[in-house]
């Protein structure tokens, strides 16, 4: 076994090992814990860069051990998985910084950071899963590692939210399991390959449609597709870094990534379109987009509003994939990254408001821009991105989605996008107006003193960094090295030449 074989495992261990060590650390070992956390995060990025260069030059990274008879546990790094790993790794670093600042002096930090690392491990594993079985392993692992984070606060509300979370996600896992076993019994393989392995199996399309339904419902729970989205707003009781991670990187994205994998590497997009499953999926995604935006419109709780916004935005990815055209694929995949950066910024900012001023509701945000201009600036950039306005990355996603839809003649998608943008504007712009232009109250609900500064540095820098990325990648979209560039590299492989 060469170094290249072990590189995916190392990538996994760079968060797994720190996580396990952190569990053992006493509560007061702050410095060591921080070092471990950040060290792991940085190491992961270094390894990742190494692998990205390798993959770009055609190196194959694969680690394989047998698990179930006839099936292996496979970690395989291709361009698509590295994109997702990249998103996780970078945002993990940002969130770690943020969480260190956010949880300063709060109890149970060892537990928190331990599970936090495990959660990222599961995400990275999920990204690198080389077959559906491995994907399933990490999909369930993700459920399990995020549960303690959701109930971290230990209140009755948190317990109930955790219960709902599990009820949905475990159900999803089971559906995915059923679909996977069924598929395996039909085709005898589960390996992800470009353009899918199902097409060669020669199975009855009616059966395949059922399998597709099971698999998509399974991952759709985490991707918060329409009837299965209710856990997400409830999971908002978790601390802000967790929400940020859940929404931007880990859970929701795992679902969306699953949709991508199933459509491209299991069924193959052309085949999926030929058995007529992509159009219903696209319609479902579109319905989710509109419905969740409508729900978001009337939420006063900031985090809940953002949660519904996530439900809506994540379905862009599904939509892009389900439109089944190369350009729409770029739009969907790139939105995976873009939405991550935008949404994590929003959640960081919401956390800052809550932590610094005790502001949790939109109606309490009057004039907050004057008290916390930098945070609000970051929030503004991300919110404009959500609406899809240039020069943010949201525009780039929307552009490719719209273009892709028109390219294959699905004109209705453009109306969905327009409606969603309109609704996004309707629920984000009032926040921006009240934050910047309304008169601030005489006293904030629960103000904490940061020595005359706006807030702690560790709370401020992560959202600024992610907001800056949102802006720069949006403005210089055609620059080499952006997520868009990498996604175009991926999309070229997923379509038959």
């Amino acid at each position, binding site marked *: 076994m060469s170094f290249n074989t072990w590189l995916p495992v190392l990538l996994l261990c760079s968060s797994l090992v720190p996580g396990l060590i952190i569990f053992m650390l006493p509560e007061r070992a702050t410095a060591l814990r921080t070092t471990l956390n950040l060290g792991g995060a940085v190491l992961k990025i270094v390894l990742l860069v190494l692998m990205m260069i390798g993959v770009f030059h055609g190196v194959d990274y694969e680690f394989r051990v047998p698990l179930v008879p006839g099936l292996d546990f496979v970690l395989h790094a291709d361009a698509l998985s590295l994109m997702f790993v990249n998103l996780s790794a970078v945002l993990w670093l940002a969130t770690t910084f943020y969480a260190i600042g956010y949880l300063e002096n709060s109890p149970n930090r060892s537990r928190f950071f331990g599970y936090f690392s495990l959660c990222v491990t599961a995400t990275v594993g999920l990204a690198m899963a080389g077959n559906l079985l491995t994907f399933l392993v990490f999909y369930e692992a993700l459920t399990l590692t995020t549960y303690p984070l959701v109930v971290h606060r230990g209140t009755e509300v948190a*317990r109930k939210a955790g*219960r709902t979370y599990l009820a949905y996600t475990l159900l999803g896992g089971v559906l995915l399991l059923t679909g996977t076993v069924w598929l395996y*019994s039909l085709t005898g393989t589960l390996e992800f390959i470009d353009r899918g392995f199902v097409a060669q199996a020669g199975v009855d399309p009616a059966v395949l449609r059922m399998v597709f339904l099971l698999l998509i419902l399974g991952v759709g729970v985490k991707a918060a597709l329409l009837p299965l989205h209710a856990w997400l707003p409830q999971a908002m009781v978790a601390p802000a870094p967790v929400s940020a991670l859940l929404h931007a990187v880990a859970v929701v994205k795992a679902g969306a990534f699953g949709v991508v994998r199933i459509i491209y590497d299991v069924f193959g997009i052309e085949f999926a379109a030929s058995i007529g499953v992509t159009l219903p999926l696209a319609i479902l995604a579109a319905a989710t987009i509109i419905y969740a935006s409508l729900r978001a419109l009337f939420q006063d709780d900031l985090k809940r509003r953002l949660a519904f916004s996530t439900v809506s935005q994540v379905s862009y990815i599904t939509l892009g994939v389900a439109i089944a055209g190369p350009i729409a694929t770029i739009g969907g995949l790139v939105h995976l990254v873009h939405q991550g950066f935008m949404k994590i910024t929003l959640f960081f900012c919401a956390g800052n408001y809550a932590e610094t001023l005790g502001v949790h509701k939109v109606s309490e945000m009057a004039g907050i821009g004057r008290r916390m201009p930098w945070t609000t600036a970051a929030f503004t950039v991300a919110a404009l991105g959500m609406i899809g306005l240039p020069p943010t990355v949201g525009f780039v996603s929307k552009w490719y989605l719209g273009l892709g839809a028109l390219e294959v003649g699905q004109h209705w998608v453009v109306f969905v996008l327009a409606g969603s943008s309109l609704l996004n504007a309707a629920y984000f712009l009032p926040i921006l107006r009240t934050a910047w232009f309304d008169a601030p109250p005489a006293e904030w609900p629960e103000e904490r003193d940061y020595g005359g500064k706006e807030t702690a540095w560790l709370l401020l820098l992560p959202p600024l960094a992610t907001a800056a990325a949102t802006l720069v990648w949006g403005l210089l979209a055609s620059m080499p090295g952006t997520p868009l560039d990498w996604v175009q590299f991926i999309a070229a492989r997923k379509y038959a030449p």
Partner: protein
Amino acid sequence: MSEWLAGAPWMMLAIMLPLSGALVAFLLPRHSALVGLGASLLTACAALVVMLQVAADGRQAYRLGGWPAPLGIELVADGLSVLMLAMTAVVGVAVSVYARVYLADSPDKVRRFWPLWLFLWAALNALFQAGDAFNLYVTLELMGLSAVALVALSGSGPALWGAMRYLLVSLLGSLSYLVGVALLYHAYGTLDLALLSERADGGLQLAVPLGAMIAGLLLKTGLFPFHVWLPPAHGSARAPVSALLSGLVVKASFYLLLRLWFTFTPEGQGVPLLLGSLGAAAIFWGSIQALRQKRLKLLVAYSTVAQLGYLFIAFPLAELEPALAWSGSVYLALSHAMAKGAMFLAAGSIMTQGGHDEIDELDRVVERMPLTLAAFALAGISLAGLPPSGGFVGKWMLLQAAMTQGSWFWALVIIVGGLLTATYVFRVLGFAFTKSPHEHERHDVPATMEWTALVLALGAVLLGFAAPWALPLLEGVLP
């Protein structure tokens, strides 16, 4: 040296070591804990060596006193036996390590526990290596009696009541089995399994004894609707005892059933369907009851009822996919032993710490004993069949068997059962994370107890990766 090691009668030793350990522990009550621990480790080593031998050379047989089968006692170890031996060894060592610390503050119990437990172990090892139906009966009876005594160990009212019920059930089951054995001997003139499998020809003379034996074994296994004795006995015993009962003892009678089944390989779909249906009913009933329990140990005990049901799902699936179904079932049994052992040990730690095991009042146990809770959670993961645990591999194989032959009903049972399992496991975890409104006294729990449970639970989870090495052992054993 190595030749001598290889030539030693390891199969015999696997039985004699715990037996003599039990004697010594009985005779030296002051040092019983030390003796017991030593004997456990040695026994485990012996079992391991047997397993290695079988893995290397295939089926092993050992004749006691050198007489051939019809006259003397023959010990037989094949893949299935050694897997069970290994399971017993792993759980046994963990329980021994745990029990030494757990029972440290009640010397009178220590005195009685170790001889009984080692005796039980000897009976188990003998059962797994027994080659004829009568020896199986004897070992089954020995095992049952020592298990009953172990339940009575805790001395509390419910425990004695539970032990009494367990005793009666155990006797009834053994009786039924004995009737079957007697009828078999009458019909075929031998009890050696290998010979029986050659001579058995079906018809009434086989059907009646087999029916009696199956019923007796089901009663002893605690399959629905014979599970009624199981929760009181397992729920009221001391934690290490519960771990042994749930993890190992019920598996022994299941093993016996498998042996008989593989020996006679009855034709027809009727009995498998009957067993499978009872298994499905057990899964649902056990899970529903587990969900309704207020006490942690009872919840875990009912979970055993449910999980035992899974083992029987293999019967109806085995007709078309024998290899997949049986390996899945055996693998589930293995992982259940480890997971349930870990779960009971963790429950024991939680009970020691808080002085109670009310689920609603777990009151942030996670903060005080994270390791124990992690053990509980990991064990729960394996039980629920979440990847990559041993339970997952077992359920995967069962599911695959069901799906390949299009048996949607069984697939649905397996899946819904897994969901129900997850539900009751996470019900406990949810309360463990939540603050309770009441105050509770707290006791310190030795780290050994916490770690033992955790290691065992980790073993259950990592067992998933052991499948490629463990399952080939079963080749040739399965019909």
